[in-house]
């Protein structure tokens, strides 16, 4: 059983992209010539050109963007994300967005919420037009469904964290899977609830899918009498909605669960699962690098950039931001430790991984965006 469509790379791409033809086009490779004739002929699968074929407004501050990538795009699994590369005033900006629609569709779709501090999310919400061309990566990430679908599944999502969950539920229901599926979904209020109609429609059509929406804003009418943020009562209510789930709960066992949303939600669900002794049943996806766990020690030392022969006093922020402020132009991507674009050789010194808290020493490759210097650090930048 496969919960994804797999399309092979188109025939002409396999014919053109051969060692002999690339040797004739050395050192650039044939793709760099083809893309000059037509950008959609690019053979680069790290920046796959994609046309915008449809833009749907989901709520006042979110849009769904349907993409038509070229033949380098093959397939994705529901729950995965892509990196989106957008050029604004000569500069490429990269962000990660989850794919928000069934893995059975050939045209991938992302859904983007307009954050106040998000330059790219704002651009995508306000400037992007149908017919524009952007570049995307292949789908990545391991926040996906297992190959053997269990008889019961629980999803917890908040805000734009619904996007990968929507793709998974869509895929499961489209595949006519009869597992008991429950979604516990938090939004600020009714109007900011992404995919509200689609989810309600699915809940009506499929008896094995139960939907529990919770609004955190006081003035919104609470359904099922639930309100506010995630707590144990919400979890138990969600489990009680579905017969398959109730039985499992009685046996003091939780179903395979997925949580996606802001850090506070993930932390709350994680500690609840830990309390119940079922940490292993929970998969989570963070939309921002964990920042809460700030290093509490003293901020000290200098950061030396070996190649550019400069150094700055460490100010405690991540090394990517400090390098950029020092006037360097390191490659960067997701800025949350996922894409490894900013990976760089550290020749000496100790750093702390911001998302895991792990401390490492000596010569190694580190991701600048999630590394914090502990004292003097030398980078090959």
């Amino acid at each position, binding site marked *: 059983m496969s919960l994804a469509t797999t399309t092979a790379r188109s025939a002409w791409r396999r014919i053109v992209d051969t060692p002999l033809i690339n040797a*004739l086009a*050395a050192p*650039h490779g044939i793709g760099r010539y083809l893309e000059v004739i037509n950008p959609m002929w690019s053979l680069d699968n790290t920046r796959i050109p994609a046309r915008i074929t449809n833009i749907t407004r989901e709520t006042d501050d979110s849009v769904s963007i349907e993409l038509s990538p070229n033949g380098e795009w093959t397939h994705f699994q529901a729950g995965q994300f892509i990196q989106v590369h957008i050029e604004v005033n*000569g500069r*490429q900006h990269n962000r990660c967005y989850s794919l928000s629609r069934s893995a059975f569709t050939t045209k991938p779709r992302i859904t983007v919420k307009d954050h106040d501090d998000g330059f790219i999310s704002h651009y995508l919400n306000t400037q992007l037009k149908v017919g524009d061309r952007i570049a995307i990566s292949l789908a990545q990430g391991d926040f996906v469904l297992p190959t053997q679908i269990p008889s019961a599944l629980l999803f917890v999502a908040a805000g734009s964290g619904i996007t990968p969950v929507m793709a998974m539920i869509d895929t499961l229901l489209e595949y006519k899977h009869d597992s008991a599926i429950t979604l516990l979904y938090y939004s600020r209020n009714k109007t900011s609830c992404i995919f509200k109609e689609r989810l309600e429609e699915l809940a009506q059509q499929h008896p094995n899918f139960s939907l529990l929406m919770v609004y955190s804003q006081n003035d919104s009418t609470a359904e099922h009498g639930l309100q506010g943020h995630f707590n144990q009562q919400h979890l138990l209510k969600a489990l009680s909605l579905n017969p398959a789930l109730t039985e499992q709960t009685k046996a003091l066992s939780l179903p395979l669960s997925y949580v996606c949303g802001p850090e506070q939600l993930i932390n709350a669900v994680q500690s609840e699962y830990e309390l119940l002794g079922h940490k292993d049943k929970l998969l989570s996806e963070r939309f921002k690098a964990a920042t809460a766990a700030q290093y509490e020690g003293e901020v000290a030392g200098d950061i030396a950039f070996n190649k550019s022969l400069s150094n700055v006093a460490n100010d405690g922020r991540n090394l990517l931001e400090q390098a950029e402020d020092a*006037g360097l*132009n390191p490659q960067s991507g997701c800025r949350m430790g996922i894409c490894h674009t900013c990976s760089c050789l550290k020749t000496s010194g100790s750093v702390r991984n911001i998302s895991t808290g792990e401390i490492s020493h000596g010569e190694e490759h580190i991701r600048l965006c999630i590394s914090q210097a502990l004292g003097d650090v030398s980078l090959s930048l």
Partner: protein
Amino acid sequence: MNQKTLNAEQLAAFGDEIDAIKQQALSERGARDANYIKRVVAFQRGLAISSRISIFAALPFLPSLGLAVASWPVFWLLICAGSIGLGIAKILDNMEIGHNIIHGQYDWMGDPRFHSKFYDWDTNCPSEQWAHSHNYEHHTYTNILGKDRDIGYGILRMDAAQYWHPAYLANPIFATLLMLFFDMGVALHDVEMDSLRTGKRSFRETWPKLKQSLRKTARIWGKDFILFPALAGPLFPVVMAANAVANLIRNIWSFTIIFCGHFPAEVHTFPKHVCENETQGHWYYRQLLGSANIEGGKLFHIMSGNLSHQIEHHLFPDVPAHRYAEMALKVRKVCNKYGIPYNTGPLWSQYASVWAKIFKLALPPRNSQTSITA
């Protein structure tokens, strides 16, 4: 040389003014620079493809094939257009595109196609070796004898302070060979074959870089001298000759531009101790005295990779090079203000000055205070 020497305060003020020119250019970077480099790359790729097609299109017209279309004039027209076009495409790839991208001038775009870490150029030198020998050694220690290996490339005597040796009698011959095989000279530059010869380094230490250079050379020469000619079947030698002419055009042109940048008379070289505790202002001052510009039109500047603005390139190696022309006006003004010489001249006079030096330094110093040491 009757230039004024600047005191520390003047040097600092001069450094600040040059810095201000740089900061303004850096803050203005944007769509204009991105569109410029994309346009040049698109033109270069198109020219390379059409030149290669032109070379092959010439073949059926070769009278010795005895085809109905046989015609010497059409054959020569197409083959010459192809060779010259390919030569120009290689010049653009190596100079305005490759050299400038590998300097990191377009790293800020965040696009791997234009990023110094990822770009490779159509010449024998591996780009990461170039980034070391050129971006680091030559641009940091510009014209410091014993530190900047660009002075004479380890082959020529280009400065009177280099000890004379009888082998330097062949200076003009070595220079001519370096010019004709400039791609190889550049490819072996960071390998430091001269250190191997003098015993400063063992073969074991030299081999990794040498292997990398030879591998890249095999890729580039394999393409131009085996793969493309092989597509012509029995006319293999014709295509090979056309490609050889293209490489020769590129070699002679890039040698000319690069030698005019640092070796005309009046350009200064420096002893090793100058770079100890050097201030930013003094570094700028040294870059200015150690570089020379070539005058010309817009097309000439593009064809030289804007290395015709060698002075601006050495002051601002990481600013997109197409901005040098407008920055040069400001730099000249600042130089006038501080009485710093600004070495510029037309191509023919700078080039004549370089060759005069090559011949003059082939001979031993006239007042033999410098001992003859090997």
